[in-house]
């Protein structure tokens, strides 16, 4: 404030000389871009070097973005960069909701990947709990697993194997590229900490009534 008037008269003025307007425009552009919320002129100036004229820089920046894919908008007292309204249709993908696969699904998938071709009974044997139909259906639907050959054992049960889409998603050339137990251990993924499964809860129960006996072993699922 006082420095501003001083700057015009004293020899120290170069110290406080504001950067050129082009530079100020860059600054405003970067701050508006990186900020999570609209930024007020006052806030902009408090961040910028002394003597900057954020209001002027904003006017120029707004002009520069006219007709571009994004615009500089005033929202209340503050400023922000927003997508041009006619391009809203491009933003649809921004709301695709990605959810982590459930623990049951990840474990089932892991067993299929490591033991394929593997039957449902074998998966249950390894996991120690029954596998709900929903879990398998979900993995089938995602096209990460598919039915393999039937096993030549009594009942000729179907097997599951992983798909090329699975390999693609996880960046693997083949399922053989999966790290082995020894490597998992040396990468610190196989600590001997007590598994959370030691505490039985009833949450995350699969609603698959058709599986006989499903209810009870599921009790011990994480």
């Amino acid at each position, binding site marked *: 404030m006082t420095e501003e008037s001083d700057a015009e008269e004293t020899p120290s003025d170069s110290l406080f000389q504001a950067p050129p307007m082009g530079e100020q425009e860059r600054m405003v552009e970067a701050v508006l871009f990186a900020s999570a919320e609209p930024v007020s002129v006052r806030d902009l100036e408090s961040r910028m070097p002394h003597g900057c004229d954020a209001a002027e820089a904003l006017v120029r920046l707004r002009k520069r973005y006219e007709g571009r894919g994004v615009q500089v908008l005033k929202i209340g007292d503050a400023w922000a960069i927003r997508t041009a309204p006619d391009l809203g249709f491009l933003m649809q993908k*921004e709301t695709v909701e990605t*959810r982590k696969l459930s623990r049951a699904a990840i474990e089932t*998938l892991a067993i299929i990947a490591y033991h394929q071709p593997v039957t449902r009974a074998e998966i249950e044997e390894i996991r120690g709990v029954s596998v709900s139909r929903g879990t398998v259906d979900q993995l089938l639907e995602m096209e990460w697993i598919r039915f393999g050959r039937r096993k030549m054992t009594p009942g000729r049960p179907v097997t599951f194997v992983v798909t090329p889409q699975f390999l693609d998603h996880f960046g693997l050339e083949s399922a053989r590229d999966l790290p082995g137990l020894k490597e998992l251990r040396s990468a610190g993924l196989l600590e001997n900490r007590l598994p959370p499964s030691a505490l*039985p809860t009833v949450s995350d129960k699969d609603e698959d009534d058709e599986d006989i006996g499903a209810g009870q072993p599921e009790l011990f699922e994480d």
Partner: protein
Amino acid sequence: MSVAERVAAEALIVDVDGFEGPLDVLLTLSRTQKVDLRKISVLQLAHQYLAFVEKAKALRLELAADYLVMAAWLAFLKSRLLLPPDPTEEGPSGEELAAHLAFQLERLQAMRDAAARLMGRDRLGRDFFARGQAEDVARIKTVTYTATLLDLMQGYARIRTRDEFRPFVMDRDSVFTMEQALERMRPLIGFAGTWTDLTTYMPDGWDTDPVRRRSATAATFAASLELVKEGHLEIRQTETFAPIQLRRKDERS
């Protein structure tokens, strides 16, 4: 030994825990030679390293085995470098071994410099920034499920670790289900005109192993309750922990 050298050596010893292995010590020692790593005197370095180990021993510092292995090897290398080559001896010459050691040091130093340059770069979230407010314009909502390779491996590791904690998981062959118990009991209860102990309905071969017995008892009991609910059975227990008794329900009464 000059004072400066002594001070340097002392510093090394005090810091022995701070070293990342013998190669790191050698690299630090090599700096005192003040020459290009390519022109380093491996012989001199071997001397320095052996002196370092001696000093550590004198101060009764515990050196990890790696350091001692390196000391033994450098002593061997030293002798090879000093003695005229023995034509009958097999294996790489002293010079070849020394050259490889110099290469290792140079490569480690190069990686350290590279690491420093890498960490000194402009970095996301510190020097340059991503969009602060990712826009959320769309109204379309689809759910996709995702998992990373790490999730997958951790999941697998979790199962394999769990194997060591089997007690929490029932083996299938030790589980007698309520359905099985019902199937067993239905034809039997027609004969239960008088009060009969529940245990007499237990399946054969399920009474010795405690795990199997527990499962069979629970299933038989649950099946009995089911049959009571259906109106086929009556059930009684005279006092807490007393035997549970069953009787066919007289349909006419």
